[in-house]
Structure formats: C-alpha cells, structure tokens
C-alpha cells in the first residue's frame, strides 16, 4: 500500500500545487469570484481530460496509435509550458491593469482571457498527471488482493498531496503579498521549465532534434535524476544529470527570455 500512496502523491502533487497557488492568488485578485469559477471549471475539465487520456493510453495498442499518442503528449507539454509562462506574466500585469479604470474595456477583455488562461492551465496540469494516475489505478485494481487497501492507498495519496499543496500555499500566504506573489510566480515558471525540458528530451529521444553534444556533463554521482530526490526534481523543475547541449541552449533561451520579461513587467508594475 505504501507504494500506492507514494505513486499517487507524486502523480498529483504538482497539479495540486498549481491549483493551490492559483487559488491563493485569486483570493487577493478576484473580487467578483469569476476567477474562482474559472478555476473550478478548469479542475473539472482537467479531471475529464485525465480520464479520456488515461483511456487512450490503455487503448492505444497499435504502433500507429502509440505514435500518435506520443506526438499528442509532446504537443500537450509544449502548449502547457507556453500557457503557464503567459499566465504568470498576465498575473504580473493584472494588478496594474485593474488600477487603470481609463482602459476599462481593455482591462475587461484582458480579464476574460486571463481567466480562460487560468482554467486551461489548471486543466492541463490535472490532465497530464491525472491520466497516469488513472492508468496506475486501473492496473492496480486488476492485481489480485487489491480492493480495500488500494482504495485506501489512493485516497491517502490524494489527501497527502492536497495537504502538501495546502500547507505550501497557506505557508506562502503568511508572507506579505508581494513576496507570496514573487515566490509563487517563480515556482510556476520552474514548473513550465520542467515541461519544456521534458518536451525537448522527448523530441531528442525521437530523433527529431539533434542532441549536439551529449552529454555535456554527468552529475549523476552528485544527484541521480533516476530516483529519489533527483527524480522528483527532474519531474518538477527539469533537473537533468546528463544534459545535452541542445537542452542547455533551450534552457539558456528560456532563462534569458523569462528574466527579461520579468524585469520589464516589474518596471511597468
């Protein structure tokens, strides 16, 4: 049962963190409650998508459908990363736009697209992780002697993940708003980086991107990305013990772009 708890925790904690951070942010920035409704809609949509994608993973048995699923997952990683980054910058601009009643119409349009962004980002986070959890549970339910301990393990895993996310977003809220905002923004940008790294690695693995120099270094002796802390960091922030040059270049471009955009956003805030 212990492994069920851990697998379900790991497959749901990131999505819960995303939802938790968005919810905390909306507490400060959503007087009408429309944003929270979008978030709830995104969560429901994500659960539905997770079920559908999990079903596709079980059903995709032939070579063709397996390959199509692979492309779909890479595309989903890239879209999720892009939307996550866009949302963080929308959140940064949000405060400033709200104060300018002169551009009320503009602000309203930005509001609507921002809320849509929140819903889609939450939905994609849940769909990605939830689909794997669904396949795991489906498989585990077929194992002999499953049943009670499985249900309990899965429920415990979800509960501990929810607690982790709640404690973190709660803990962050004890900080003053500016700092909460800064830390949660950077966390979301790190999650987006992990998605981007994962997509690039899959493309290199599929032979669609050259690795250039592979690997540039090997820090597996220090922190292995295959298990324990290293694998959690690999999944959440994109740590790689043996990065290729292509990956490092993508990382450099991402870091430069994000840092520049953060500076510009600060000047305008």
């Amino acid at each position, binding site marked *: 049962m212990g492994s069920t708890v851990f697998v379900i925790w790991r497959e749901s904690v990131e999505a819960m963190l995303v939802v938790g951070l968005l919810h905390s942010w909306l507490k400060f920035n959503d007087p009408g409650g429309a944003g929270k409704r979008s978030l709830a809609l995104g969560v429901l949509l994500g659960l539905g998508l997770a079920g559908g994608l999990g079903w596709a993973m079980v059903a995709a048995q032939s*070579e063709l459908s397996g390959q*199509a699923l692979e492309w779909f997952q890479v595309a989903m990683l890239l879209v999720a990363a892009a939307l996550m980054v866009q949302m963080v910058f929308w959140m940064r601009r949000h405060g400033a736009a709200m104060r300018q009643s002169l551009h009320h119409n503009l602000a309203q349009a930005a509001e609507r697209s921002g809320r849509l962004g929140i819903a889609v980002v939450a939905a994609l986070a849940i769909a990605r992780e939830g689909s794997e959890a669904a396949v795991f549970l489906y*498989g585990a339910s077929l194992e002999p002697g499953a049943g009670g301990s499985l249900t309990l393990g899965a429920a415990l895993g979800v509960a501990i993940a929810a607690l982790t996310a709640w404690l973190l977003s709660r803990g962050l809220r004890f900080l003053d708003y500016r700092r909460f905002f800064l830390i949660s923004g950077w966390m979301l940008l790190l999650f987006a980086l992990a998605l981007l790294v994962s997509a690039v690695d899959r493309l290199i693995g599929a032979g669609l991107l050259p690795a250039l120099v592979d690997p540039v270094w090997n820090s597996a002796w220090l922190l292995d990305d295959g298990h324990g802390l290293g694998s959690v960091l690999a999944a959440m922030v994109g740590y790689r*013990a043996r990065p290729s040059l292509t990956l490092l270049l993508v990382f450099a471009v991402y870091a430069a772009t994000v840092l520049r955009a953060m500076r510009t956003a600060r000047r305008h805030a």
Partner: protein
Amino acid sequence: MLHLLMRLRAVLALLAGLCVVPGALAQDLPTFQLLIRNARFEPATIEVPANTKFRLLIKNEGPGAEEFESVELRKEKVLAPGASSFLIFQPLKPGLYKFFGDFHPETAQGQIVAK
C-alpha cells in the same frame, strides 16, 4: 451522424498517415524484446549494438500497470496490464543505461548495455 463519423474516420486515417513514415522505417530496425511481469523486467539486462538505432518491443503481462522510464535514455511510456508497445532508440554510445518501472521502482529495475 453517419456522415460525421465517416469524416472523422477520414481525419483519423490522415493523422495516422502522417505518423506512418517513422513507423514504416521502424520495420527494418534491429528489435529487442522486454517483458514486464510481476513488477519486474525480463530480461533485466538488454545488450544492444552501440551506435545503432534500434527498437524495443515492450509487453506488460501485468498484473499491474507499469511506466517504462529512463531520464537518461529520454523515454517514458505507460503500459496498461496486457498492453504491448514499442520504443525507438536513437544510436547509443557504448555504455550502460539504466531504466526503471516508475510504478514499482523498488523491484522494476533494468539496464541497456550498448556494446
């Protein structure tokens, strides 16, 4: 309704056609088999030729689901119980590459040795 279904099928066939090129090439690749049974890999060590593109056929005999994963090899594949799938590997330099079952990491450990 029938019309719509037929159109959907045409779109799916087109999408499948777009993916057929790597699939067709895959037929000629050296192929290796990997079995997942009772949360273990069989064989746990797979020897492959170095600097050669190859294909790994994976079959999960269950009873649970498994995720074949290797950060090092840049692969990740979820397999439901009873499912078979395949992965194409780009040429590997000589060396040892570890992989593991993400759903049962305590027992499901394996390695690819490229020679």
